[in-house]
């Protein structure tokens, strides 16, 4: 028993180390990038376009492909380790980069002028101005990145390809193996240890880190009016994606806003901008391919390509059908998340006591990675509900539960922060005029939080895919439990080691997810956002 505790402890520390390592890399790279990028209009556009594309694509859809590339090119353990790190990196980096970029971008001109006056060198400016300026927002984004990273690392620690299971030692793989082996006592114990450590890190380490970072805050404009009431979430903690979308939004408002002329001088020509964006998107696809070709045997590549296309032409209907099922699941999850968040946020906004009680609970729940406790929930649900509902329905329920728990937090956080940012007089108006529950939600809560809600939606969709990934294909005690779905099929092919089919099914998933996120989600988000943001931005 002591052994198990000690192992779980060490495994957790290792997992945390991986997450922090990727976060550290992301911070350093992001700092350098954003320092360069704020100096040039063109580089800035390239940077923002890339980041906004990357962040709107659920990383998890690429995982099978990345895994195969890394494992087939690198010796066993190293390949999996690097694939895991790479995946985490793509999950934690973007919000930190955007935070850094925005911090530098919003740095008052006087700082730059001051440094010119005192003849500071670039290195001096970097240390004395740029780094401190980025600290508050970086720190609060590290908290989110930590939670997201933890989610993905526990997914990526265990990978089974054909008969070989690649294990990266860490708490995710440790718990997984315990559950697979049927050692439930030990697995619960490990979960408790993980939970305690996560709690310690978020409640003590991050809290003090945030307090420390507050002294670097620079108030750009008097916001005291909105900040009268206490905030539990630091402002930026809640809006990793909001920042990116707000930039996109700013660009949108600039083109739409009445005082357009003011901005026009600084902008690139719109056609040039569009051309640039399209070429960047193409480059993002082509460059990795070119980089990858030296490692490629052309004959084998063409042969594989042929096989993939063959498989696609035969099975496309099946893949597409399964994709639609998964899309349905994602939509249901998003809908449920929206409704439940609305109710919870309403309660928290109107009843201070509920807020006080719920906030810490939500903070803690959100910071525990779902994959760590999912097997436990799955087993429990199967035992308790299996007889009543039948296995098929229970599995479906497990998938929905897992996807919900993986993703509901994004909407909840975003909505909460959106609502908390509303002037308290708005609530007074509702109280004085005795607005009903329905009217308060329709006239105040939803429109007031709308910009925040829609920005949270991108993350929610991504999170929902992640939730499907971890739950559609469960292996418990050598038995496979799975529901129909493209994500499940992919996991199945990975387990079989059927590289060709992994690639062809992945390509269907990737293409559709990209199309959806770029053409459907983003459009939807932008149009909704323009309606609500513009009007509210004009008032104050």
């Amino acid at each position, binding site marked *: 028993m002591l052994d198990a505790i000690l192992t779980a402890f060490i495994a957790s520390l290792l997992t945390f180390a991986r997450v922090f390592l990727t976060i550290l890399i992301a911070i350093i790279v992001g700092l350098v990038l954003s320092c360069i990028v704020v100096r040039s209009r063109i580089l800035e556009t390239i940077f923002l376009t890339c980041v906004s594309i990357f962040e709107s694509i659920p990383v998890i859809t690429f995982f099978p492909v990345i895994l195969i590339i890394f494992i087939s090119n690198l010796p066993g353990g190293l390949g999996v380790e690097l694939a895991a790190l790479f995946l985490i990196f793509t999950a934690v980096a973007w919000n930190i980069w955007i935070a850094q970029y925005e911090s530098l971008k919003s740095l008052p001109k006087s700082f730059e002028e001051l440094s010119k006056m005192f003849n500071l060198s670039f290195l001096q400016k970097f240390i004395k101005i740029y780094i401190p300026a980025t600290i508050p927002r970086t720190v609060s984004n590290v908290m989110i990145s930590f939670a997201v990273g933890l989610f993905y690392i526990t997914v990526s620690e265990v990978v089974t390809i054909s008969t070989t299971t690649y294990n990266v030692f860490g708490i995710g793989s440790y718990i997984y193996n315990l559950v697979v082996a049927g050692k439930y006592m030990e697995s619960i114990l490990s979960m408790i240890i993980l939970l305690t450590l996560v709690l310690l890190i978020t409640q003590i380490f991050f809290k003090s880190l945030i307090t420390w970072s507050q002294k670097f805050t620079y108030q750009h404009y008097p916001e005291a009016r909105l900040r009268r009431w206490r905030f539990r979430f630091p402002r930026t903690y809640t809006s990793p994606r909001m920042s990116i979308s707000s930039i996109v939004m700013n660009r949108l408002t600039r083109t739409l806003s009445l005082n357009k002329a003011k901005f026009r001088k600084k902008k690139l020509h719109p056609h040039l901008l569009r051309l640039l964006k399209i070429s960047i998107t193409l480059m993002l696809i082509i460059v990795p391919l070119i980089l990858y070709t030296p490692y490629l045997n052309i004959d084998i590549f063409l042969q594989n390509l042929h096989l993939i296309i063959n498989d696609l032409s035969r099975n496309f209907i099946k893949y597409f059908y399964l994709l639609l099922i998964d899309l349905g699941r994602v939509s249901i999850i998003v809908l449920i998340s929206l409704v439940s968040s609305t109710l919870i946020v309403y309660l928290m906004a109107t009843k201070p006591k509920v807020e006080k009680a719920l906030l810490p609970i939500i903070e803690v729940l959100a910071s525990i990675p779902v994959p760590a406790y999912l097997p436990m929930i799955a087993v429990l649900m199967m035992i308790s509900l299996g007889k009543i509902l039948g296995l098929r329905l229970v599995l479906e329920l497990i998938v929905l539960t897992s996807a919900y728990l993986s993703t509901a937090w994004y909407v909840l956080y975003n909505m909460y922060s959106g609502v908390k940012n509303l002037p308290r007089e708005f609530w*007074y108006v509702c109280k004085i005029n005795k*607005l009903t529950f329905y009217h308060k939600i329709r*006239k105040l809560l939803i429109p007031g939080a709308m910009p925040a809600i829609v920005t949270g939606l991108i993350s929610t969709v991504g999170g929902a895919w992640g939730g499907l990934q971890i739950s559609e294909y469960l292996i418990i005690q050598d038995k496979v439990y799975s529901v129909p779905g493209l994500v499940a099929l992919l996991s199945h092919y990975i387990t079989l080691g059927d590289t060709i089919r992994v690639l062809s099914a992945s390509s269907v998933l990737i293409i559709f997810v990209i199309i959806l996120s770029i053409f459907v989600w983003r459009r939807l988000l932008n149009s909704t956002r323009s309606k609500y943001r513009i009007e509210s931005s004009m008032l*104050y």
Partner: protein
Amino acid sequence: MHYLITIAILEVLELAFSYRTRKGLLPILENINFKVNGMEFVSIIGPSGCGKSTLLRIIAGLEKPLKGKVILMGEEVREPSPKISMIFQDLALFPWLTALENVELALLHKKLPKNLRKQIARKWLELVGLAGFEDYYPGELSGGMRQRVAIARALAADPIVLLMDEPFRGLDSITAEGLRYEIHNLIFNEESSVKSVVMVSHNLEEVVELSDRVIILGGRPAKVIADVRIDLPRPRTPRDQEFQDYLDKLYTLLSSSRLG
């Protein structure tokens, strides 16, 4: 002195209020007593941060006093209601609703049919001089027009008492002057149900121009240190000597309140 037969619409009795701080209770208001009669416009002035806005929120029922009570037409105010309507310092117009929809907010509680509700809201916008601007969003209106929307919304609730928290603060002086000139008629219009007004302000000229009575708060915690009746015929103009005399009197009282 006038001896009119007047009924108290609003009574503030033995009111006390404290903020909860880390170091314990910080008393803000203490032993506040006053009455507001029918058709009376009362202003509250005092040094910044003395608790004027808090007092207004307590009267509205938005904040609970530590001691004492507020009585509206013989009944204690326990919670906010449309009977005591308020125009907020920053207006609190919902930016995602049009002018008309903003006014409709004050009518929702009456559960009227939609058409009638819109009709009443439109009537109020007309009364404040905004006919034709029903479908504009607050962001598309000028400061003075927004102010009018806020007034229309506050009056549409059919309040008995209207509270105003520095209602002209955000306006340029010319717009403010024009609106001040109209506001007395707007509020005590025959369509309006308003019986009394309580306004918080920093601007003494506006206070003398509009008020029938001025209550001066001072000290820490704040108490009522003076209650001045402004006995001037309307319309009033700052060019009158009497107007200036009242202004001087209030200045003197306010300065002494800072010391006290």
